[in-house]
């Protein structure tokens, strides 16, 4: 009794004697930690008990992964009891503590471990679509967590299950660095793959990964046209064979195919289409003069087709030109097509007028009902001699030294 009083007096003396600015309490006798556990399971109450003092002004500093705090004690059974707050007792990781006394002599650490049973499986699957063929893969990451949201201890067993068509596979992986993961390679065929995981009897929900066809292999192209004449009016349709990846999966709809047409002059024409059920279609108008096209298609950077050659025959061998009204009216036509029918409207006729070997004027008109009329205005073209060059359907006719008056 005497002893207790003595301690109390001494304690309070030291307490008041300590600097007013600092709250650290002075202790003179050996304070001892009365519990020996160094590991706790998350969620279980943790109370640090110290004997040797009943000075409730002694705070306990305590810090875990997320933060730190100070704990005020309660006296029970002549001991100081520090109840570790729930936010520390429920999160896994190393926890350190220190009694805030003059010399901070007493400190220690303990570890909070995850609960044994998972209650949720944090699952991350990505990418959500992969290419068939066995080269591409998706990754499944699982974090099995306990009731309090703590990742389970490392080397926890996780079963990764996946189904594709008739195949169902189970594989076992172990957690490491808080997570477990598995790479899942694509099958040969395209389709849907279903994934799920299991950990200690707990099953995750279902995850879907789309196995898309891989990129196309080389293919063939075809051309279809209503006739082989270069009438500048009909349309040639290009189609591809069915585009497939190397495992015979038809490529995804919408794959973009570009057709490159090189004509006799070496000029490049381009048309394109997107695949539907593997077939892409594109169109191009016939040329208006005889030509040979070489056509090749490609999926840019991925695959290409064979080259096909198309020849367009000319629709006419000659056309008539009539000068009238002091040679100021030039009438071209009738322009006749391959069956001697009047050529459909829209054939381009070009007139170039020279004087002294110099181009003075160029006119370009489209045919209407098989003919084209050029009127040479006397205000523009004074009286004199002119040369004319008329081109249509790839045929050029020249008239030298025509006199206008």
């Amino acid at each position, binding site marked *: 009794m005497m002893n207790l009083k003595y301690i109390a007096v001494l304690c309070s003396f030291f307490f008041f004697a300590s600097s007013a600015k600092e*709250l650290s309490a002075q202790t003179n006798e050996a304070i001892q930690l009365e519990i020996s556990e160094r590991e706790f399971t998350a969620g279980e109450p943790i109370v640090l008990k110290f004997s040797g003092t009943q000075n409730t002004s002694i705070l306990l500093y305590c810090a875990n992964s997320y933060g730190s705090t100070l704990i005020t004690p309660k006296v029970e059974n002549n001991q100081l009891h520090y109840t570790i707050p729930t936010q520390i007792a429920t999160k896994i990781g*190393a926890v350190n503590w220190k009694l805030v006394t003059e010399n901070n002599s007493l400190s220690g650490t303990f570890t909070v471990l995850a609960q044994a049973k998972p209650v949720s499986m944090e699952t991350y699957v990505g990418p959500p679509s992969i290419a068939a063929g066995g080269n591409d893969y998706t990754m499944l990451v699982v974090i099995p967590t306990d009731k309090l949201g703590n990742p389970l201890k490392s080397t926890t067993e996780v079963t990764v299950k996946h189904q594709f068509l008739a195949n169902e596979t189970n594989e076992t992986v172990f957690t490491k660095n*808080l997570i477990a993961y598995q790479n899942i390679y694509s099958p040969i065929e395209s389709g849907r793959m279903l994934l799920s995981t299991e950990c200690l009897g707990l099953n995750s929900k279902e995850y879907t990964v789309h196995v898309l066809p891989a990129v196309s292999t080389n293919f063939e192209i075809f051309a279809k046209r209503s006739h082989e004449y270069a009438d500048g009016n009909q349309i040639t349709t290009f189609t591809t064979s069915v585009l497939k990846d190397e495992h015979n999966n038809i490529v995804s709809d919408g794959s973009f195919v570009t057709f490159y047409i090189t004509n006799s002059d070496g000029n490049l024409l381009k048309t394109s289409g997107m695949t539907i059920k593997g077939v892409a279609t594109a169109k191009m108008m016939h040329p208006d003069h005889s030509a040979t096209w070489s056509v090749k298609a490609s999926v840019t950077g991925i695959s290409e087709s064979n080259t096909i050659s198309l020849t367009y025959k000319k629709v006419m061998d000659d056309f008539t030109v009539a000068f009238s009204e002091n040679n100021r009216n030039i009438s071209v036509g009738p322009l006749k097509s391959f069956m001697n029918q009047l050529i459909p409207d829209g054939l381009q006729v070009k007139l170039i007028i020279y004087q002294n070997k110099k181009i003075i004027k160029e006119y370009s008109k489209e045919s209407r009902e098989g003919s084209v009329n050029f009127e040479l205005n006397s205000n523009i073209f004074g009286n004199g001699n002119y040369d004319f060059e008329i081109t249509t359907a790839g045929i050029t006719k020249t008239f030298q030294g025509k006199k206008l008056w």
Partner: protein
Amino acid sequence: MVKTDKNIIRGFLVFSYVVIISMLIFLISSSFSYLNTGADRSKLLHTEVKKAENYSPKIVWVEDGNEGRNVDEQTLIKIENDYLDAWYVRNVAYKTNQTVGIADYYTDNARKNIAEFVAQNKKQQISVEATTLSHQPNIEFFSEDGQLVVLSDKNVVEYKKLFKDGKFVMETTETANYKIILLLEDGFWRIRHLVKETIADFDKTIQNKSFANLNIKGINYYPQATPWDMFGDQFDIKIIENDFSIMKDAGLNTIRIFIQYDDFGKAEVKEEKLQKLQQVLDAAETKKLKAVVTLFDFYGNYEVLDWTLTHRHAETIVSRFKNHNAILAWDIKNEPNLDFESRGKQTVLAWLDHILLVVKSIDTKHLVTIGWSNTESAHLLKDKLDFVSFHYYEDRANFEQSYLDLKAKIPNKQIVLGEFGESSYGGFWKPFVGSEQKQAAYFKEMQQVLAAQNISFMSWTLYDFEDIPASVVGSRPWRTNPQKKFGFIDKDGNRKLAFEFAVE
């Protein structure tokens, strides 16, 4: 009479016309400029860069590869930024007990843990000022879709200071290893899981160097035209070289120079300033002068969240010059004890304690000291310094005794008198107080004591100055005027009587 009245009315009319017109112009222009404010098209996309450096602990990435997908440089930078920001907002949250910004850097589930701490600490009036000083992060795993990363962060040195009811309770420096899972959400790498795996007290022991007797006969130096702005726009190495010759010829062997924290660019030290410092040190080496380089001049924040910035400042400067032969010592801070009252002794000492570690860990060659302003504070942190230095501006009659008392307190360290001097000012604001004769007598007597006790010294200062910046002693004339007259050479370049006592 009538004419005068008419003129008055005329004048009044003209005047009121001018007033009304100017008011109209003002109204129209202000309403026009008001209508022009508001939605600025360039601000619509939030393209402006707002990032300011506010947290820069030392980061050393462990680059030993990782499981899963390869991490590209860009992603690594983004992860580093967001991860450090996560630490920063958490430190701010525990300091202020508010959860501002936490939502950006912690996922829904993770931020609950922080909110619980904040709620509890707020209720019990606990606040925690914390900062991390170094990290060694390592990417352990990067998921194939680039949305999840597992980091380990080793040897995270964390300093914490805890308060309860506004009063300081304790401070601690700890080293911990962490494992962290971050998820990419809304363009932020957010912490999903944070697990401290091990924790230990940080070892703050410092190795001090052994060295021969210092024998400093030195002087505190600023160029005459640019006191307290040695590395500014008017920097001229010719003037400085010339001054070095004067000092060398006078028999001095050491100069003490000052590096202003703000002027040198805070955490991001300006290359231009470093080059000027290089020139000064090179010139000193040529003239066979040693330099005591005083860091953190005019720095006065000391706040825990500002530490990392000061650490990067010191790191940049010290590592640049750690092998320079002209440097004798780094003086960490000039007269930090003057900030005890305004900033708190514990705050200042904790800052010094950790900045010492930074400087000593980088530079193992040069000595380290702190320029305490008086003998009463000079014993602080003595065990962590290579030599002790103090300043003395009090009565010279008591100097020898003060020094002997200090020597008794610190028997096994060399003690350097880092600043001393007397103003020769005896003008209007302090009539008859000082004169050149009195100044010369002061130095003569001081030199006798210094010689008798074999004390290393650096006097204040080479020149009388024309202008003293207000940040030095304020702007009151009875303070600034005496401050101008501490030199051995007056403002016209003439040697004052004290000059011959610059060295005994």
